[in-house]
């Protein structure tokens, strides 16, 4: 890891964490969405460092672009500007309980990484990759050979999602079956 890589990774990781914490703690859902966009862009930067430029571009286009626009549309439809954003919990001490659960989750995941030897220095220099992982061509070849069945299934899934979304979000017709 070169010095430049370390600096860029640290900056992107800090931005990603700040975005995530901001998303989880912002009162206003619009602020949450904006924080999440910052997080997604930072993760796209990390994809670049991990030699996946195609995914970095798609992350910005699909996630930070399309999906978050959808979120913000829905927020603007249904959240009034003057609305008070209160948090009333159904369980007593729900935040504290959630915090404990999350803390143990982090300990579990990081501890698993540690026990799995992820933090140990690499014993051998890893062999040079057989394919160029940065090239869109290699990705496309794998997508249309090894991942052909999931790829086709995704098209069916997207069709089902479109139909489901239209059927669910349609305003109920008066007197009709809705």
């Amino acid at each position: 890891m070169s010095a430049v890589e370390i600096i860029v990774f640290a900056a992107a990781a800090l931005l990603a964490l700040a975005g995530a914490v901001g998303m989880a703690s912002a009162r206003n859902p619009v602020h949450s969405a904006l924080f999440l966009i910052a997080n997604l862009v930072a993760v796209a930067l990390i994809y670049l460092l991990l030699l996946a430029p195609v995914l970095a571009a798609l992350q910005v286009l699909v996630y930070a672009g399309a999906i978050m626009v959808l979120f913000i549309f829905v927020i603007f439809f249904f959240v009034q500007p003057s609305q008070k954003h209160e948090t009333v919990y159904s369980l007593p001490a729900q935040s504290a309980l959630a915090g404990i659960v999350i803390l143990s989750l982090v300990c579990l995941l990081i501890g698993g990484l540690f026990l799995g030897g992820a933090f140990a220095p690499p014993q051998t220099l890893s062999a040079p990759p057989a394919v160029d992982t940065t090239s869109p061509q290699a990705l496309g070849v794998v997508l249309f050979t090894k991942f052909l069945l999931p790829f086709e299934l995704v098209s069916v899934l997207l069709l089902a999602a479109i139909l489901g979304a239209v059927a669910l979000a349609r305003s109920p017709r008066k007197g009709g079956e809705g």
Partner: protein
Amino acid sequence: MQPIVTYSLALSAMLFAIGALAVLARRNPLVMFMGIELMLNAANLTFVAYARELGQVEGQAAVLIFLAVAAAEVAVGLAIIVAVYRHRRDVDADAASGMKG
């Protein structure tokens, strides 16, 4: 393991936990849904990190599929949230607990 892969995995664990926190501790369904997106994104980061570690593109191809699945999930999830809002004029996840059996 290459250091950058290790750091990415640790970052992914933290992002996943924060996403889970948003789902558990928030009551606004939109913010809970964003927490789910964050968890999905953290899982994607793990796949890309291992693709880098193993020098293979299969992990990246899987992430492409997950991107499409996430888009479908968001479309249906937001439609459900819109339907609940329409019905109840309310923004609280607990308000929809009337659907409990």
